[in-house]
């Protein structure tokens, strides 16, 4: 039986939206931790840390997100570990976000003027203290626009989770379309929900970028 798109469907979409936000949030938080580690490895004076981080980033940047999702999703299954799809997807997106944030933050760490580390070194601050108190706080500021920009990409990228069968916003839309045969309405609402999530972030990021450009003039 074909039904008309109604309040119940809207609520179903909201539930899907909730999962979308949750995946993005977990991936972003996990990616922040992993990304920081990768960025620190990338700028490390030790080659043994620098190189693996470099290759890791290259692999993740050089392959489609969907392929990464498949690999982790089915890879975990092949390893014989029986995990629920939610965990598998979180792991996959976290790896993806770690690699990308790692690369963004590497650039930002290196954008902090060398005079800053030199001054800190001249004050005898240890490598850890130089990073923690001098370089990273300044790099964080520089990185905010690009970091938020990546978060927007990440939110939109969660729609790929629908392909491995995870019911987030996009997948919910598919279900409801199948039941209502009203793809324009359903995907219209789905699109508006993504937009409502992403646009304020994009706006914030652009404004911050302009403010920083103005401040550095």
């Amino acid at each position: 039986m074909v039904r008309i798109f109604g309040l119940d469907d809207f609520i179903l979409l909201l539930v899907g939206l909730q999962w979308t936000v949750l995946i993005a949030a977990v991936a972003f938080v996990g990616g922040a931790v992993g990304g920081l580690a990768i960025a620190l490895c990338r700028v490390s004076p030790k080659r043994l840390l620098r190189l693996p981080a470099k290759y890791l980033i290259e692999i993740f940047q050089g392959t489609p997100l969907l392929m990464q999702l498949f690999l982790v999703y089915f890879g975990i299954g092949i390893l014989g570990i029986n995990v629920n799809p939610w965990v598998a997807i979180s792991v996959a997106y976290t790896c993806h976000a770690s690699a990308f944030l790692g690369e963004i933050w590497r650039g930002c760490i290196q954008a902090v003027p060398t005079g800053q580390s030199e001054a800190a070194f001249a004050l005898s601050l240890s490598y850890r203290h130089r990073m923690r108190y001098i370089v990273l706080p300044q790099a964080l500021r520089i990185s905010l626009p690009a970091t938020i920009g990546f978060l927007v990409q990440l939110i939109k990228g969660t729609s790929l989770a629908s392909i491995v069968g995870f019911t987030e916003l996009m997948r919910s839309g598919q279900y409801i379309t199948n039941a209502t045969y009203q793809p324009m309405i359903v995907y219209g609402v789905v699109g508006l929900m993504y937009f409502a999530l992403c646009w304020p972030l994009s706006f914030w990021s652009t404004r911050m970028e302009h403010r920083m450009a103005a401040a550095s003039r």
Partner: protein
Amino acid sequence: MSTTSLAQTEVDAGEPLVSMRRVSKYFGSFRALHGIDLDVHAGERIVVCGPSGSGKSTLIRCINMIEPINEGEVVVEGVTMGANKSASEIVRRDIGMVFQQFNLFPHMTVLANCMLAPMKVRGVARAEAEATAMTYLERVRIADQANKFPAQLSGGQQQRVAIARALCMSPKLMLFDEPTSALDPEMVKEVLDTMIWLASEGMTMICVTHEMGFAEAVAHRVIFMADGEIVEHAPPQEFFGNPQHARTKAFLAQIL
């Protein structure tokens, strides 16, 4: 702040505080320093000058290990720098440095700039670090700006904060790399006055500067560098009155 008192400040005659022995430094295949020999005793004030690219910055940056050296050795307080990591780290705490571009930490207040290293490196308690910082900020006459951020200060004020920040670590040696070169002319004097005050306190100083008035008033010895070598090395009267080398004469003719 009169400079007459400077003549009375003592130079320690014993072991040199800094001893550079046949120091060479390469950037790739380019030789920035070539066989530098230099002894600096406690209480001594050295001015280093020379044309751009002659290796002045590299020379002082080798002393506190910002630049690792390729040949020879740098001995500070009897410790060969770089030979034993922890020993050289401890000696490095006694070496303060002031940069041409100030290099204050822009995300911290003036006061926080001055408190960070004493707390993290020397393990000084917060209250004590703050008291010390305020003392030195008063000495460089900028205590009223303690809670501002560096960007809110003029260049001259920033450089005086940078001097105070270095002094908060109670250094035995201060390195200056063209501290007034990035300043507007009207701010040069306030920074030079601060350095003259520091000299009158008996601080050991190695200053890369082209402020020849400062050199005459304050330096025990003036060093002229060219192509990574020390070409001329003399007390200021001799250096300015009777320079020996053609290159020194040409340089002085250009700059005075």
